[in-house]
C-alpha cells in the first residue's frame, strides 16, 4: 500500500498540537495512523512540543498541589475504561474510530450512501463515512468551505490524481472536481466537511436540494 497524497503540513502540525476541530482531527488521525511518513512529522512536532513545554514560563500551582496529586494517586482514583462503540467488527474501519458512535446508513444519491459519525465537541465540521458503489461518477461539485477526505477502501480519481487506501484529499471552494470511483470495488472514505456542497450545472441545481450531506 503506497500512500501518495498527504495532508498539508499545516493540518498535520495542528493535529500534533491537538488543535484541530474534532471532526477534522479524526480524518487526519486515520491518515497518520496509516502513513509512516506523516507519523514521522507528528513525532518531530511532539519533540518540538516538548521543547516548548520546557521553555514555557512556569506558572505556580496552588500550594500543596504535589501532595494533593500524590493523595489522588494513593486514593487509587482510577480511570474508567472508555466504552468502545458498537460498530461492526467486520467493517474494516480504522482503529482510530474504535471509540466513536457511528450512525445508521443513509442514502445520499444513487450509488452513494453515508454513515454519520458522532463527534463530541465538533463545532466547525461534521464527520461521516461515505460509501460509493464501484464506478460511481459523482457530479461536478465545489465546496463552500473545506472537505477533508481519507480513503479507507477502494479508490477514486479526479484531475488531482488517483486516491487509494490511506490517501488524503483536500477540497475547498477553489477546487472544481468530479471524482469517479474505481470500477473494481466500492469506495469507503472518511470525510470531515464544513460548509456545503455545491453541485455545478443546471442538473446540479435541480437535484441539489435532494442531496443529503
Amino acid at each position, binding site marked *: 500500500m503506497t500512500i501518495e497524497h498527504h495532508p498539508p503540513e499545516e493540518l498535520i502540525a495542528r493535529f500534533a*498540537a491537538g488543535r484541530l476541530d474534532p471532526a477534522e*482531527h479524526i480524518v487526519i488521525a486515520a491518515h497518520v495512523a496509516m502513513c509512516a511518513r506523516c507519523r514521522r512529522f507528528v513525532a518531530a512536532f511532539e519533540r518540538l512540543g516538548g521543547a516548548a513545554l520546557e521553555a*514555557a514560563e512556569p506558572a505556580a500551582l496552588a500550594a500543596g498541589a504535589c501532595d494533593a496529586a500524590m493523595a489522588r*494517586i494513593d486514593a487509587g482514583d482510577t*480511570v474508567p475504561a472508555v466504552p468502545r462503540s458498537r460498530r461492526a467488527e467486520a467493517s474494516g474501519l480504522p482503529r482510530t474510530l*474504535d471509540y466513536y458512535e457511528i450512525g445508521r446508513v443513509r442514502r445520499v444519491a444513487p450509488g452513494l450512501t453515508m454513515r454519520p459519525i458522532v463527534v463530541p465537541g465538533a463545532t466547525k465540521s461534521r464527520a461521516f463515512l461515505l460509501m460509493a458503489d464501484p464506478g460511481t461518477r459523482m457530479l461536478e461539485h465545489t465546496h463552500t468551505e473545506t472537505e477533508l477526505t481519507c480513503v479507507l477502501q477502494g479508490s477514486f480519481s479526479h484531475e488531482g490524481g488517483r486516491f487509494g487506501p490511506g490517501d488524503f484529499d483536500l477540497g475547498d471552494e477553489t477546487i472544481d472536481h468530479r471524482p469517479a470511483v474505481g470500477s473494481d470495488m466500492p469506495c469507503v472514505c472518511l470525510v470531515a466537511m464544513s460548509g456545503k456542497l455545491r453541485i455545478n450545472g443546471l442538473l446540479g441545481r435541480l437535484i441539489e436540494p435532494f442531496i443529503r450531506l
Partner: protein
Amino acid sequence: MMTVLLQRRISGHGRRSGSLAKRWPRVKERPEIAVDWSGLIAQIALRGDREAFRRLFEFFAPRVKGYLLRTGSSEAEAEEIAQETMIALWRKADRFDPATSGAVAWIYTIARNLRIDAVRRGRRAKRMLQDIEAEYRPEPVESTETTHGRSQEAAHVEAALQRLPVQQSEIIRLSFLEERPHSEIAALLGIPLGTVKSRVRLAMNRLRELLDDLK
C-alpha cells in the same frame, strides 16, 4: 536529550535578538547538567519513587500550567490539567519507552491529550484518554515495527530536528506550539507580517524534506 540541546540552541539565538531575550530569562536558572528525566520516570515505574515524582512535579507541573495559560486555557483548566498530567505520568510510568520519545516530548503528549479530552468531554468530566491515545497510534497493518525499528525511527526524527535551522524550529514553535498570532511573531522577530507566513511555510517544508531524506 535532544530537546534540551535544541532548547539551548534556541535560547542562544534568543539572547542575540534582543526582543526574544526577555522571553527566556529562566534559561540561566536551569541546571547546567541536564536532569535525567527518563531515569526519574523509570524510578517511579520500578519502585513508586515519590522523591522522583516530586522532582518531576516541581519542574514540569508549573511548565505545563504555564504552557496551557500561554495557549489559551483558563487558570482553572490549566491548573487541573497540569495536575492530571503528573498523575497520568505516575500511572503510565511503566509504559514510557525512552527509546521512542524523549521524556519531555512524552509529557507534552500527555498534556496535549488531556487538553483534547477537556474539549471533548468538558472540563468537569472524568479524564479517560484511551480513546485519544488510540488516535495517535499506528494502524496495526503497519505496526509490525519492532522496538529496534521504533528507536531507529526516533533517531531519524531527532537527527532531522538537529539539522533544522534554529530560526526555523523557532518559527514553528512560535506559530504552532505557542500559537502566537502572526502579528505577534512579526513583532517578536522584527520582521514584516507578510514574511511570517512565508517563513512558516518554508520551515514546514524544510522539516518535511529533512524527515524524508533520512529514510
